[in-house]
């Protein structure tokens, strides 16, 4: 009798048994993932590549990001990519991950706080402190860095770009690239459009170089955003011009 029951149980998987097996498998997988994750290495700047990949995969649930102009990004040397940022959109973080995935190189971003637990977590994602010496060191080491302009309410124009942080790229003698980021809260699509490197008409010896570079960056990003005509929500609220519910 026992043998018959056993044989029957082997052939017919009862729902409870199936759920139990699946739960056990899921738990085992989770433990294995956690084990793998905690034994990962971080790079010289504390960026955890596998953590970045996980967050990037997770972000696909919400965003469908496309990147244009990657031919302007250097393949080996360092470069500073300056992006516009909409408030609360974490544009530098997602732009860094999107560009990193497109060019298959680690890309870092500026603007992690120096307070736990947020600071160390953002360091795992590739965050750098907004300190000139930190940027300069990373750029000299051949890293790609995304710097966000000061956040704005809409995607219509970019905010002020910190010329002192841009100065670290000037000191490190690396390319400075403008990039426009566009994302809409009510849609999945997001876009990062990288422009050609900024070249000043007049070579400057002093601090005017970073000031003028920052101004050129701002003008270039604004021009790209104008071409996009601002991003619309795709809903009737776009019909309200120049209001906070209109273009975002």
């Amino acid at each position: 009798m026992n043998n018959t029951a056993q044989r029957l149980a082997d052939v017919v998987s009862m729902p409870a048994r199936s759920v139990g097996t699946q739960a056990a498998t899921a738990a085992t997988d989770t433990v294995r993932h956690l084990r793998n994750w905690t034994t990962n290495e971080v790079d010289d700047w504390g960026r955890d590549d596998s953590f970045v990949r996980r967050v990037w995969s997770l972000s696909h649930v919400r965003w469908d990001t496309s990147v244009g102009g990657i031919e302007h990004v250097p393949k080996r040397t360092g470069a500073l990519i300056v992006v516009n940022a909409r408030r609360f959109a974490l544009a530098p973080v997602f732009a860094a991950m999107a560009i990193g995935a497109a060019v298959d190189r680690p890309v870092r971003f500026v603007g992690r706080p120096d307070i736990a637990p947020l600071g160390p977590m953002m360091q795992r994602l590739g965050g750098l402190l907004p300190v000139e010496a930190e940027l300069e060191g990373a750029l000299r080491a051949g890293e790609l860095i995304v710097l966000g302009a000061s956040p704005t309410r809409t995607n219509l124009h970019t905010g002020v770009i910190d010329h002192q942080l841009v100065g670290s790229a000037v000191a490190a003698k690396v390319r400075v690239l403008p990039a426009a980021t566009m994302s809409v809260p009510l849609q999945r699509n997001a876009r990062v459009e990288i422009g050609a490197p900024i070249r000043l008409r007049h070579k400057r010896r002093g601090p005017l170089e970073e000031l003028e570079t920052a101004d050129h960056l701002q003008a270039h990003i604004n021009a790209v955003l104008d071409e996009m005509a601002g991003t619309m929500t795709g809903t009737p609220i776009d019909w309200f011009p120049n209001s906070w519910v209109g273009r975002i």
Partner: protein
Amino acid sequence: MGGELGSRVASLLENESWVGSIEGIDADPPRRRLRRTVFHRIVPGQHERTVKVVTDYNPHVVVHIAVWEPHARAATGTARSLTDDAATSILGAAAECRALESIVVRSGIEIYGRGRGSVTRPSEQVAPNPTSEYGRMVACIEDTANAIGKRIGVSVGSLRLATVLGPHVPSALGRLLRLPAVPFSMLANPPFAVIHQHDAAEAFVSAARQRIDEPLNIVAPGAITALQAIRRGQRIPIPLLGPEWGAATAFTYLAGAPLPDHVREMLHRGRLADNARAREVIGFAPSTTTSDVIDQLYRWPSVVHTPAIKQVA
């Protein structure tokens, strides 16, 4: 040259063609067989004897490695006084030597400090701002050596080493990581870098050969967090939030692995440094990565069987 690092440096210097004679001073005898090095056993406090030995020898290059990391071989207070005594006697005596051309001193990346807003991976251009006792000790050595170098007109180079780890190297961090259960900061868990003892020794030899005249960071490539290190060593990680660190420090002290402030700082704030300049100036690139150093630390055998150089039976 009694410690692991000093003995290794002496042994490497013996193989250098540009090195004539070598003499060394330490409180402990050398850990390895040295063929043409003359060793003087002098306790750091014996100032007159140190001065006599150094001035009689009249060296061209002085490599000063006598730095006691707190709780590596001595408690913090003792380490501070031994380090001060050794620096004062040896660097002071070296200043009296007419033949002296170059001084190379051991320092540490703890010199940069880890205050709020400090650079994550400082290069040598970042101004020192030590925030731990060990950081202040090495800053003091650098200041003393630089003052002497300026006064007598010789080049002074300092090697700012990351935490020196490896088999048989006494280290507060090494002892902590080898405990069966290791505390770490759950909220921060920041990355840090270390350097293998052999790489550190090679850096000293390269620096002495090149007669460097600037500080250089000597750091292994890569970084690791405390949790990752604990997991690699298959130890039990004990996540701590903050207030319980006091109890954890007392517990590790009782377990034989005291936590000095620079190690505690590292576990909370991390410790990295930019090593690009060392490659440019002395062509030095460490061969062991940070994670490999950690792996070697955990593979530390309790008994080492050294084969005989000549079999007699």
